[in-house]
């Protein structure tokens, strides 16, 4: 077991390090900024993955995404705090505090009720933001120039490079931590809760608390993702941060990526971003068709998401552990949840 964990951790380390090195040395700016946006979103997808492993799909995580984004933006605008070492943890903190509070209600629900209740809460925040002129209403407002240790830069390449390295580092830390968590006793409960809650209770664990914990964790990750996206874009607005379409996009990427590995959200998110870019470029009038069609293809032919493709190619006997546990888990969960999402 320990060996397997090391493998994944090592893989994540090598993966993120090579993306970072490639990004700084070789990749063009546009691709770097796409990776930046994709990886920021991937943090939220990682949060959804934690829930999905338990068989829960949230259609309202834009709530935490938006809370994170607006926390970063408001700290800069109203209090003049632009230090990323304060604003980003604050984004995660605000999201997790709200997630903790709402968790008491939400943890009682499953399936479509869980998804819809989340959606309802997120649309409350959307409604408030749209109606509040002081928060920029639908136009939103700009995010102040971020600083690190008090230093900021106006040079676009330097700014992009630092944000890019930042997201690589945060993505690495977050995915390793989530991986460790999923391997822990509490984390292993994920699958157990999905399969049979009553048995978990008889084992002496509280299902409600386990789900609550995961919910707060996913809220924190999504808040962080929102905060980072706000920094990357330099602008917050309800339409692209809090609306239900954002939640839908997160679920979309989760299904596309598959729940097989903590690396899947990063790969899936990048594929989604590139897919959308090329669809936009090639068919400006019907790009949605391409994006939606791809999801259908993935659901039909790769029920475990894109990750199952990677696992199939690189997997086989060598990664026996992953092949048997995670692989099958991925298959079954993806099947049921993708079906739910499709409905």
């Amino acid at each position, binding site marked *: 077991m320990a060996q397997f964990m090391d493998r994944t951790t090592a893989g994540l380390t090598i993966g993120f390090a090579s993306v970072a090195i490639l990004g700084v*040395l070789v990749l063009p700016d546009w*691709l770097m*900024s*796409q990776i930046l*946006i994709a990886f920021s979103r991937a943090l939220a997808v990682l949060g959804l993955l934690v829930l999905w492993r338990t068989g829960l799909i949230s259609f309202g995580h834009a709530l935490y995404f938006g809370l994170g984004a607006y926390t970063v933006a408001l700290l800069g605008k109203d209090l003049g705090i632009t230090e990323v070492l304060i604003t980003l943890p604050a984004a995660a903190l605000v999201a997790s505090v709200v997630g903790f509070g709402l968790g008491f209600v939400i943890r009682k629900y499953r399936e479509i009720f869980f998804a819809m209740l989340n959606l309802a809460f997120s649309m409350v925040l959307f409604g408030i933001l749209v*109606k509040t002129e002081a928060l920029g209403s639908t136009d939103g407002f700009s995010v102040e120039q971020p600083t690190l240790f008090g230093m900021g830069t106006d040079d*676009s390449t330097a700014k992009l490079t630092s944000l890019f390295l930042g997201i690589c580092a945060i993505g690495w830390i977050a995915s390793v931590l989530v991986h460790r968590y999923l391997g822990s006793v509490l984390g292993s409960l994920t699958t157990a809760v999905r399969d049979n809650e009553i048995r978990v209770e008889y084992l002496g664990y509280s299902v409600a608390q386990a789900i609550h914990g995961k919910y707060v964790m996913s809220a924190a990750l999504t808040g962080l993702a929102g905060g980072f996206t706000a920094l990357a874009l*330099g602008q917050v607005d309800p339409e692209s941060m809090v609306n239900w379409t954002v939640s839908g996009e997160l679920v979309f990427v989760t299904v596309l990526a598959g729940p097989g590995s903590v690396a899947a959200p990063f790969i899936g998110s990048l594929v989604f971003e590139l897919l959308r*870019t090329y669809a936009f470029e090639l068919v*400006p009038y019907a790009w949605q068709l391409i994006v939606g069609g791809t999801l259908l293809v993935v659901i039909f032919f790769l029920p475990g998401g894109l990750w199952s493709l990677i696992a199939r190619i690189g997997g086989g006997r060598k990664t026996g552990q992953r092949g048997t546990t995670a692989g099958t888990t991925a298959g079954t969960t993806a099947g049921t949840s993708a079906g739910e999402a499709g409905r």
Partner: protein
Amino acid sequence: MKPVHIAGVLGVGMAAAFAFSAPAVAKDTVSLGIVAFLSGPAAGPYGVPGRNGAEMLIDAINKGTLPAPYNTKGFAGATVEAEYIDESGGNTKQVSEYRNLVQKREVDAVVGYVSSGSCAAIAPVAEELQTLTVMAVCGTPRIFEEAPREYVFRTMSHATADNVAAAHYVKEMMPDVTSYTGINQNYAWGQDSWRDFSLTMTDIMPAAKVSDKPQFPKIFAGQYGSEISALSLEGAELVHSSLWGGDLEAFILQATPRGFFHQKKVVLTVGGVSAYRLGKRLPDGVAIGSRGPYGILVRDRDTPLNKWFVETYNDTYGGYPSGAAYQYAQAILATKIAYDKAGEAAGSFPSQQQVIDSFKGLEFDSFAAPVKMALGGGHQAVTEHMYGLVKWDADAGVLSVTDVKVYPAECVMPPADKTSVEWIESGMPGAKC
């Protein structure tokens, strides 16, 4: 490790080469990224006519068939190539798409944008990427009021003018109005519109009473039954509205059978945009604006450029051009003039900096009226503004306007040293009407 180093050095070297290779090489083509809603609710009223206007003008510019003095071919002699992209998908998407246009597809300039939200998100990125960006339609005054811009231009008046002009028109045409209310969508556009209109009314018609129950239905609501009842029950004589597109059409269709337009005087600040779509369903006597001298309000203006525009549009796409077609075409025209002027001054194909320098403070005759890049350090245009009353011309089977009043730019736009809200709140000092 060595190959990585070499690749790195090569990469940096190439990046540097790209960064410095821009200026003063003779060019055969100028590539433009043109952004407009091609899908979603804003595509019908704004995006598609806007795209058509841009496409038609680029075609004419490449052939050199525009009326004089704009009958030179291309942008400073270079053929224009356009890439069209969809504005929908949210601001996040728009920012990444903007980066793609500039960094991946390497366009020379970006023209377009309908939504204020897109413009507000794009402006800082345009500055960061140092790329000429000409905003065509979006209304929010924030763009040039919250920060000075070097690379961003907007070639039409901002939204303040719509509502200040609406108030002036009410004062001139309906001086007996004693009370007014409004129905505006509950988002930035609607909130700003009502604020500017009611503030201006307080200035210029202090005797008229403002309602304490203006209606703010949510955007794309589609059902206005309860709002129409609330407005009807209220005593206010005049109703101001900045509803647009499908919302405006739904409101009019639901309000008409209830006798709303017989009971109230109505001013629709962007009614001109939907005028042709609504036709005779738009009740006679409603006051409409079209965000400036565009669309139905200037259809019969007898300048050679306007006649060319209306006729060519009709031949190409069938029907009269609406406001957005004029506004996108105007953005393209302004960019052409800036390129041409800069090219003339430089004696060769101009660099981006030379184009920007000639764009700043540019004054030119557009299709129906002159445009002055007067605000925001020469980056924000001002034009005259117009309102008129709708009249269905049964003989010709086409919607017309009567009692058109024109307000000079100095009357409806703030001076360069004040933001729009400051200007209206302080009683619009210096306004020349």
